């Protein structure tokens, strides 16, 4: 072996050690039976009967021992599409299906994904007449004597599903104590490789499928004062497609961003108005947390909050929107609002700051612990407490079972949904 060889080996090793690009594309969901003209949509009453907590009898290696099933929807124009989500704890996995009726059976067609890695694949499931479809489709109420069993197969990638999956209904989902499941950055982070980019209107429309009942979105101002959604302080390749533009987003006008910048999955940076329109008109979400990431007056955001709260009231929609107070600077600007005392807000600072700002929600970081005494104090004042941002399943389980919080912010709303809905 000689000097030249070592130089070459060094160079090879150096270039071998490079960053790998991960992807988790949603598989092609083609299923002839599901797409046949004989298959018809499910009604509201049928859908509700399928919801519940199920034991996983086959497929535990992939999805764990139990799953919580819940419907959500997306409205596009005059069309409403319904999705059944299966929330599982193992590997932060979930399944998202659409449902149809075919004769006396119910078909569920969709895909599964593990959030901790990039594994994904197709799912094709059936509730046959003898496994509960007859009872579900009959129109009568489901009793404890009825057995609902969902059977079928799952696969990997675009491969034909061939691994058995079987679930048996055991009890209704837990809805005893209201709990807000808040998806971080509109549904998750760009690094979570979701079908849409973080803080995009497209991801907001998907958030409820992932188990969210609310979203947290990050608001910044462009150089010409347009409120837009963007988490990072600067334009960077983590969130946008590379285009030679970098530095603080506040340096650019809205027209420049709108024309030149695309988020990682190709979306435009949405304005706050577009995001709230998506949340209000296209989703069943009932909470929006506006994380204020800019300095200066927040009057414009307050005005938009009022406008959309009024629209929500007019629709009977019940959408709550809070202005987030993450630091002292935003707190001071919040206190400059003429009507701050009646402005719905979520305050991340101390209990004293919650009192000063009249915020209806206190939101401490989870790394301070359960803080049950402090949370009880907040409850005694008629306020709520949300905790942020938990992603480790073991910690999420502990905070839901042992904590007194009213809501949780997570990049993995599906696992929060599992531990919440599967509680006994």
């Amino acid at each position, binding site marked *: 072996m000689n000097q030249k060889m070592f130089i070459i080996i060094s160079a090879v090793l150096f270039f071998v050690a490079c960053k790998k690009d991960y992807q988790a594309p949603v598989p092609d969901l083609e299923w002839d039976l599901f797409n046949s003209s004989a298959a018809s949509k499910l009604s509201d009453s049928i859908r509700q009967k399928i919801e519940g907590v199920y034991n996983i009898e086959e497929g535990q290696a992939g999805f764990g021992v139990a799953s919580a099933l819940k419907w959500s929807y997306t409205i596009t124009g005059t069309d409403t599409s319904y999705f059944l989500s299966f929330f599982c704890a193992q590997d932060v996995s979930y399944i998202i299906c659409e449902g149809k009726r075919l004769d006396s059976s119910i078909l569920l067609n969709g895909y599964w994904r593990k959030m901790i890695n990039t594994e994904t694949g197709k799912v094709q499931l059936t509730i046959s007449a003898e496994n509960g479809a007859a009872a579900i489709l009959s129109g009568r109420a489901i009793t404890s004597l009825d057995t609902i069993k969902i059977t079928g197969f799952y696969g990997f990638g675009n491969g034909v599903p061939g691994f058995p999956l079987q679930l048996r209904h055991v009890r209704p989902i837990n809805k005893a104590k209201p709990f807000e499941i808040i998806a971080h950055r509109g549904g998750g982070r760009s690094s979570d490789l979701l079908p849409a980019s973080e803080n995009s209107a497209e991801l907001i429309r998907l958030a409820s499928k992932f188990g969210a009942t609310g979203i947290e979105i990050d608001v910044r101002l462009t150089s010409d004062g347009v409120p837009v959604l963007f988490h990072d302080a600067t334009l960077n390749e983590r969130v946008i497609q*590379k285009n030679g533009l970098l530095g603080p987003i506040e340096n650019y006008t809205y027209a420049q961003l709108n*024309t030149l910048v695309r988020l990682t999955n190709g979306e435009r940076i949405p304005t706050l108005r577009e995001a709230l329109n998506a949340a209000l008109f296209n989703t069943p979400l009932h909470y929006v947390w506006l994380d204020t990431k800019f300095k200066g007056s927040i009057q414009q955001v307050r005005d938009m909050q009022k406008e959309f709260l009024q629209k929500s009231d007019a629709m009977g929609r019940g959408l709550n929107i809070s202005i987030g107070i993450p630091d002292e600077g935003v707190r001071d600007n919040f206190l400059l609002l003429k009507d701050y005392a009646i402005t719905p807000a979520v305050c991340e600072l101390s209990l004293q700051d919650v009192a000063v700002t009249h915020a209806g929600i206190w939101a401490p970081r989870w790394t301070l612990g359960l803080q049950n005494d402090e949370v009880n104090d907040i409850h005694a004042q008629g306020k709520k407490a949300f905790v942020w941002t938990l992603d480790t399943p073991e910690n999420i389980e502990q905070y839901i079972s042992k904590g007194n919080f009213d809501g949780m912010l997570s990049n993995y709303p599906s696992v929060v949904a599992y531990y919440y809905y599967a509680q006994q």
Partner: protein
Amino acid sequence: MRNNKFISRFFLYCVLIQLPAVAKSQEEFTSMPTGRGQYALVSYVGGGLGMYAADAGTPQHLQTKLDKIKANFSMRIMWHPDHLLRFGLETGYMTFYSYTLTDSAGQRGKAALRAVPMLVEWSMALTRRFNIFAGSGIYLLTTDLNYITKTKSHKVSVGWMAAASYILPVSKNMGLGMELKYMDAAETSDGSIAFQLQWVWKFTKW
């Protein structure tokens, strides 16, 4: 045009052939250690052309015209102790790339990505004239955008560089260097391969 190319190449050959002959007539500049306990500071000042070597990532939905070949300039000071390994600092000025754009309404614009590297470097003399360099540090990046309005925006990126140079001795303390270098701003995935001519000067010894 072809004649001009031939003439410039011929001239370059002549310069390269003659330089060693000139240097032989005096004590030569050498990259190797000159003796135990002998230290020196050496400056490298140079300029040349760089070719953007990464995926430039211009907006795909617009008509763009990309310019990847840009001038660059660098300045380096190395401490030469009495062994092979050297340590120093480098800075400079370069443009990674620029592009012009036209949107669907016909509005035109231009964007350029510039950088000032600030690197801590190590180098080794492999022979009397051949050196390799590797460095790590930061790149002060600037976007110059002219679209609808003018915007200048800055970012600091971690980055690195690697280079190989051949130094032709001119005198005992000076040399003419030819350097091939790769400059990389890691956070923004920007890299450029540059070729530079450098003036190398051992300006102090002790």
